[in-house]
């Protein structure tokens, strides 16, 4: 990846990530988050991780963002007034993020991480290579995951649907 491309994308993703946390209007935060995710997706694609890049766009920038938007609308969130979070939360939050930065820094300074390529085949990161792994080595895990998701959906519906006794009382209160 060219250096100018990396710097360009890095600046975009960092600035928009800052935008997510400093803006007051939740919808503006969300739009900044979409920009962050798009910049990261291009970074992934530039690193030959094509599938991960596109999944990032389809799943995160697409589906999950729409979900967030729905939540914001459903809860009717307004622009925040005043600072949120207790002092202790901010204190420990600062410590935790400082620890994370220190950890990343110490890992990045390790010499073994400066290896450029790990001898993967030319198809590394493509959809074909990924699906071949999924349907051979990880077949059981793949199938089991689909069952897991089905169980989660059934569970969510079972808990969210109206209980038999509540049929009449709750109908009026729903929007």
């Amino acid at each position, binding site marked *: 990846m060219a250096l100018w491309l990396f710097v360009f994308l890095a600046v975009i993703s960092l600035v928009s990530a800052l935008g997510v946390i400093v803006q007051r209007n939740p919808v503006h935060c969300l739009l900044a988050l979409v920009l962050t995710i798009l910049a990261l997706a291009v970074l992934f694609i530039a690193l030959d991780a094509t599938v991960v890049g596109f999944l990032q766009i389809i799943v995160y920038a697409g589906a999950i963002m729409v979900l967030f938007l729905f939540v914001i609308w459903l809860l009717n969130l307004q622009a925040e007034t005043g600072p949120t979070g207790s002092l202790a939360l901010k204190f420990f939050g600062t410590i935790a993020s400082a620890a994370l930065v220190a950890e990343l820094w110490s890992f990045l300074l390790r010499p073994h991480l400066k290896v450029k390529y790990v001898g993967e085949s030319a198809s590394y990161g493509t959809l074909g290579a990924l699906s*071949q792994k999924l*349907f*051979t*080595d*990880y*077949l*059981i*895990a793949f199938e*089991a*995951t689909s*069952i*897991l998701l*089905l*169980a*989660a959906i*059934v*569970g*969510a*519906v*079972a*808990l969210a*649907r109206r*209980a*038999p*006794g*509540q049929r009449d009382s709750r109908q009026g209160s729903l929007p």
Partner: protein
Amino acid sequence: MINFSQINLVWLPVLPLVVIATAAMVVLLVGVRVDDEESDGLGWLALASIVIALVLALGIFGQSGIAFAGAIAIDSFSAFFELSILIAAALTVLMSLDYADEHRLPGAEYYSLLLFSVLGMMLMATASDLIVIFIGLETMSLAVYVLAGLLRRDPRSSEAAIKYFLLGAFSTGFLLYGIALIYGATGTIKLVAIHAALTGPLLSNPLLLLGLGLMLIGFGFKVAAVPFHMWTPDVYEGAPTPITAFMAVGVKIAAFAGFLRVFMVQLGPASAAWTDVMWAISALTMTVGNMLAIVQSNIKRMLAYSAIAHAGYILVALTAGGPQAGGAILYYLLGYAFTNLGAFAVVVALERRGAAGDQIADYRGLATRQPLMAAAMAIFLLSLLGIPPLVGFVGKFYLFNAAVHRGFVGLVVIGVLNSAASAYYYLSVVVAMYMQEGGFLEETRRSRPALVAAIAIALIGTVLIGIYPEPYFTAAGNAYQSAMSPEEVHAATAMAP
């Protein structure tokens, strides 16, 4: 092009899993057309699939190998655990048939989630790589979180579900982080490859040790070991009683299956790193479980703490390690399934809608009102206490015997003392049933043959496996041995009749 021969598809041994998965989806599809009040048919459908899977699982006995590129272990170890899990599931369905009707639980969701969680448990028992163990655990847990909260009109049930879900999700995070660190240390998620990699300097690798610790926390939560037991009493009290029974037995068996396969079988070479920690956890679990059980007045909470104590007894053998201990744990879990499910079935039979009947005081004078029910409950409690010749005694004897052979005399002394202390709360129920008057008058209801059948089967298991333990104990020992040296199963040999 994709080379399909490298997948090593071996269908026959995974058929029990396929049957349960298919049945769960069929129950869901059929259930759409069925009213909540008429869910009996769905229950019988679930029961039929469990029985079919049980027969198919018998066919796995005697094999020893791994398949699906190392994701699935096909050995007597998985077969033994699958059988225990399926027996627990079958008894749970028998208990649920009338309960679901009376409490108007949504049948399609109830039975399909039950089957999904059974599938997750069986996956945990057969998994041979960390990813599949994790997915199995999640499938099981997600389904059980929801099942715990299905009594929608009872706030205690919702509390149980949300508590179990939040703490469970938290503990799953520990497990997953542990798996990630072990992958980082060894470069593989296949248990057999991890076993082979555990030599020399890797054994003191901080990443590996941290990963082991985090996985220990994850499994400790699922088996309700102290200090990861806080959720147990509230969740057990609030959940629908058949689900409580299923959690106390099924979830515990499956969690121990994963625990055993990961820690005793495959991480055995690293046992020096965790034996001391496990020693302390085991001693704490037994002591705290028994001490807190003594002060309970609600029978479901009492049985919850008793379940914690029993996890402690099993951890004694897990701490000791070795093939003898492995066989003892498998045998103990099988016996525990019958005994504990039986005790919970009696609780289901006696409790009344609106929470009456789950206090120990309600059991006063039961022997005069319902002598058979009281006798059954007494036998289950005496087995949990460990009175010969019932299965609880034999199982505990094997566990402690194995630990003594490995030199863990101190831990066994703690275990035996705890066992003696547990007599107080088990016998207090028996005393209430036989020697006190009062209690409350149970509703005289229509006969419930399925529930009675569940109690009868549990009773037969408790007595039979206790009086004549030899074949079961031998099978358990062989099952544990079969997990020790797996080889790749080839389609040709596994498919042969």
